[in-house]
C-alpha cells in the first residue's frame, strides 16, 4: 500500500515539482491579490520556491552541494533586504493613502 511513494524524499524531481508548485502559487497570489502586503508575501513565496530548487539541485549533485547552500544563504539575505524596502514603501504609502489595496492606487490614470 502506497509503496510507490517509497524513496520519494530521495528524488530530485519531487523537490523540483514542489518548488514549481510553490512558485506558481506565489505568482497566482501576486497576480490576483489586491493588497500590497499580500502581493509582497506572494513574492516571498516565489523566492522561497527558488531557494528550494537551489537546495534540491545541490543535494542531489554532491559537487554542487556547498555552492547551492551558499547561493541559498545569499538569496535569503537579499530577500530580507527586499522585504525591508518593500515594507518601508508600504508604510509610506499607507500613510498617504490609508489603504493597502494596490488597485486603488490609480490616481495617475485619470
Amino acid at each position, binding site marked *: 500500500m502506497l509503496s510507490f511513494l517509497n524513496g520519494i*524524499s530521495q528524488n530530485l524531481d519531487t523537490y523540483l515539482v514542489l518548488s514549481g508548485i*510553490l512558485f*506558481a502559487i*506565489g505568482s497566482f497570489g501576486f497576480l490576483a*491579490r489586491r493588497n500590497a502586503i499580500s502581493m509582497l508575501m506572494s513574492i*516571498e513565496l516565489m523566492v522561497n520556491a527558488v*531557494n528550494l530548487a537551489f537546495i534540491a539541485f545541490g543535494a542531489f549533485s554532491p559537487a554542487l552541494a556547498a555552492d547551492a547552500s551558499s547561493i541559498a544563504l545569499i538569496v535569503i539575505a537579499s530577500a530580507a*533586504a527586499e522585504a525591508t524596502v518593500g515594507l*518601508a514603501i508600504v508604510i509610506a504609502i499607507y500613510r498617504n493613502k490609508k489603504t*493597502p489595496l494596490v488597485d486603488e492606487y490609480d490616481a495617475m490614470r485619470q
Partner: protein
Amino acid sequence: MTLPSTIPLLGFGWNDLLFLVFAALMVISGLAVVLQRDILRSGLSMIFCFAALAGLYVLLGTPVVAGAQVLVYIGAISVLVLFAIMLTQTKVAPRALVFQTQALPAGIAAVILALLIGLTVVSTAWPAQAAATAVQAADLATKLFSAYTLPFEIVSVLLLAAVVGGVFLAKRERGEAE
C-alpha cells in the same frame, strides 16, 4: 530499539513520511497565504509555509540553510510583515474585495505554469543524480569565503542600502501628524 526501514502498512520510509508531511504543510499553507480573505491569517500561514520549507531543507541535508531560513524568514521577515499588516490593517479591507478582477485567469495561468514546470522537470534527464547528501558546515564556510566572497560582501552592502533608504522612507518626519 531500531525503527523498521519502511513504515509498516504504508510501505515507505520515515524520511518519505516526513517529506510528505512537510510538502503537504508547505503547499496547504502556501495556498492559504494567497487564498485567505483575512490578511492577518495569510501572514500567519506564511510562517507555517516557511517552517515547512526549513523542514525540507533539513531533510535535504542542509541544516545551516534551514537555520538561516528560520532566523531570517520566520524571525525577521515574517515578523516585519505581520507588523506591517497590523499597522496598515483597516476595517474595510478584509470585507472589501480581496481579489482583483483578473483572479480567475491568473488562477488558470498559475495552474498551467505549475503543470508546465512539472512536465519539464519530469521530462528532463538530470545530469548527475546522486542520493541526497548532507552539506558539511565547514565546506559551506569554505565556499562562502572563497568562491562567494564577492557576493557575500555585496549582500552586506545591499542590506546597508536597504536599511538606510528604508529607515528614511518609513520614519515619520518631525511635526507630521499621524
